[in-house]
C-alpha cells in the first residue's frame, strides 16, 4: 500500500516537474507565436520582395525566362531613358506642386473652422471635405474624366457661362499635369485638414489668451503660436503628402494614361508599363528602387526633423 502511495507521489512530482518545464518553455515562446502570423506576412510581402527587388534590378529579367546578371547596366541606362527622365521629372513636379498647396489649404481651413463658433455649417464642411477622401482614386478619376470632358460637361458649362474659353483639361500637354495635381489636392485636402483640426484642439486656449493680453493680433497668433506649435503635425502632413504624391498611379491610369505625349507619365505608371507592356521586369525594378530611395530619404529626413523637434516639448 505504502509502496503504491510513494510511487504515485514520485510520479506526481515528476509530472509536475515536467509540466512546469513545459509551461515555462510555452510561456517563453508564446509571445513569438503571437507575433509569428503577421511576422510571416510582413516578411514575405515586404521584406523578401524588397530584397528581391534589389537583386533583380541588377539583372535582365522578363519574369518568364531566368534572370541574367548584368551588373549596374540597368541603373546606367536610366539616364538615357527619356520616359524615365520624364516620369521622374513629372513625379517631382507633381510632388513639389501638390504638397505645399494642399498643406497650406488644409492648415488654413482647419484654423478657420476651429476658430469659428460651433455650428452645423462647420460640421457640414468637415463632412463634405471628407467625402472625396473615402472614395477610391479610380472612382475620382472616372468622375472627373466625365466632369471635365466635353463642351457641355458641368465645369465647361460654368466656363462658357462666365465667358471664358473652355480649356482642354486633360488633352493639353501644358494643362494635363496641373489638372491632375488639382484633382489630387481636391481629394486629399480633407484628410490633412482633419489631422490639423485634431492637432489644433490640443493647443491650450490659455496661450492665445495671454498673447491677446500682450497685444497680439490674429496674424501674430497664427505665426507665433499656431504654426510653431503645429510643427510636428506639419512635418507629418508634408511627409505623408510627399509619399502619396510620389506613388501616384490610379489617377493617371484612368484619366490620361501618361499622355498626352509623356506630359503626365509618373514613375509608378512607368514601372507598370515596363513590366506588363514591355516585359522588362529587371529594369523596372531599377526604376522602382529609385522611387524607394526617394521615399527612404524623405522618411529619414522626417524622422530627423521630428527627433530634433521633440526637444521643444
Amino acid at each position: 500500500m505504502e509502496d503504491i502511495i510513494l510511487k504515485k507521489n514520485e510520479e506526481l512530482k515528476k509530472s509536475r516537474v515536467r509540466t512546469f518545464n513545459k509551461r515555462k518553455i510555452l510561456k517563453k515562446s508564446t509571445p513569438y507565436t503571437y507575433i509569428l502570423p503577421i511576422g510571416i506576412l510582413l516578411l514575405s510581402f515586404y521584406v523578401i520582395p524588397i530584397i528581391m527587388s534589389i537583386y533583380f534590378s541588377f539583372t535582365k529579367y522578363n519574369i518568364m525566362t531566368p534572370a541574367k546578371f548584368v551588373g549596374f547596366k540597368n541603373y546606367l541606362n536610366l539616364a538615357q531613358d527619356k520616359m524615365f527622365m520624364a516620369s521622374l521629372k513629372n513625379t517631382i513636379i507633381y510632388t513639389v506642386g501638390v504638397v505645399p498647396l494642399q498643406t497650406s489649404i488644409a492648415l488654413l481651413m482647419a484654423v478657420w473652422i476651429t476658430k469659428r463658433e460651433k455650428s452645423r455649417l462647420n460640421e457640414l464642411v468637415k463632412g463634405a471635405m471628407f467625402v472625396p477622401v473615402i472614395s477610391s482614386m479610380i472612382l475620382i478619376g472616372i468622375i472627373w474624366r466625365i466632369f471635365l470632358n466635353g463642351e457641355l460637361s458641368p465645369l465647361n458649362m460654368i466656363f462658357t457661362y462666365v465667358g471664358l474659353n473652355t480649356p482642354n483639361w486633360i488633352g493639353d500637354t501644358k494643362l494635363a499635369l496641373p489638372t491632375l495635381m488639382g484633382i489630387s489636392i481636391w481629394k486629399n485636402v480633407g484628410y490633412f485638414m482633419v489631422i490639423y483640426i485634431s492637432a489644433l484642439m490640443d493647443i491650450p486656449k490659455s496661450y492665445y489668451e495671454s498673447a491677446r493680453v500682450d497685444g497680439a493680433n490674429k496674424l501674430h497668433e497664427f505665426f507665433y503660436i499656431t504654426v510653431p506649435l503645429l510643427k510636428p503635425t506639419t512635418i507629418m502632413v508634408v511627409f505623408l503628402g510627399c509619399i502619396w504624391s510620389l506613388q501616384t498611379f490610379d489617377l493617371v491610369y484612368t484619366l490620361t494614361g501618361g499622355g498626352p505625349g509623356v506630359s503626365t507619365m509618373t514613375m509608378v505608371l512607368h514601372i507598370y508599363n515596363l513590366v506588363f507592356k514591355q516585359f522588362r521586369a529587371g529594369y523596372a525594378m531599377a526604376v522602382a528602387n529609385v522611387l524607394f530611395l526617394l521615399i527612404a530619404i524623405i522618411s529619414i529626413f522626417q524622422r530627423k526633423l521630428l527627433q530634433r523637434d521633440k526637444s521643444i516639448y
Partner: protein
Amino acid sequence: MKSIKRIIGNIILLMIASCMIVPFVYMVITSFKITYTAYNFDFSLSDITLQNYITIIRDTNFVHYFLNSLFIAISGVVLNVLFSSLAGFAFAKKEFPGNEKLFFFMIMTLIIPSQVTMIPLYIIMRQLGWINSYFALILPIPTAFGVFLMRQAILNIPNDLIDSARIDGCSDIRIFFQIVVPLIKPAIITLTIFTFIGAWNEFLWPLIVTTNDSVRTLTVGLSSLNAQYTVNYGLVMAGSTLTFLPSFIIYLILQKRFVEGVTLSGIKG
C-alpha cells in the same frame, strides 16, 4: 459689421463644401439618366430611369465584382485585426528578448511602398500559383500599421487587470479574448474601417494579379467598364455610384471613428 463678415464666411464655406460634393451629386444624377453622349446632359431631374442599374446588374459581371470586393475586404479585415492585435498584445504586455527590436523592425516595413514591392510580389505569387486567386488578393492586406495601432491601445490597459486575471488562473489566450479584446474595441473599429476602405479602394495590385473575371474586384471591374463604355456615361456612373456607396454608408455611420483613424494614421511611416 460682424454679422456681414459672418455671412460672407458662411457663403465661402458653403461654396467650398459644394466644390467637394458636386462631382458626386453629378455622378448620382447621371447614373439615373440615359446619356449616350457627353452633349445631352443637364442638371434637370426629368427622364429619371433605373435602366443603367438594370443593365449593369443584368448584363455585366458587376454584382460578381461587388461580392469579390466584399469578400476580399472582409477577409482582409478579419486577418489584419486578429493578427495585429495578437502581435500588439505580445509587444505591449509581454517581456521577451528582442521585443523592442522586433517591433522597430516591423514598423520599418511601413516605409516600403507597395508600389515598389509589387513586381517581386507578383513573381512570388506566380511561383506559388496564386495569380487569379483570393490568396494573392487577401494575404498582402495586413500592414505593420495595425500592429502599431493595437500595441498603442493595449499599452493603455492596466497591468493589474491582466495580472489579477492570471492569478485567478486565466490562460493567456483567454486573457486576450475576454479582457484585452473588449477593452480595445475602439481601436479595433478604427483598424476595421481603415483596412476595409483600403482594401475596397485598392486598384493597382488587384489589376496586376487578376487576369480573369472570376476573382476581379470592383475597382478593376469599374476601370474596365470605364474603358468599354466610353460614351455611355450613365452606365459608368451607375457603376461608380455602386462602388462608392458601401464606403460612404460606413463613413456616415462611423464618422467619429473615421476621424480618429485619420489622426492616428498620421503616425504611420
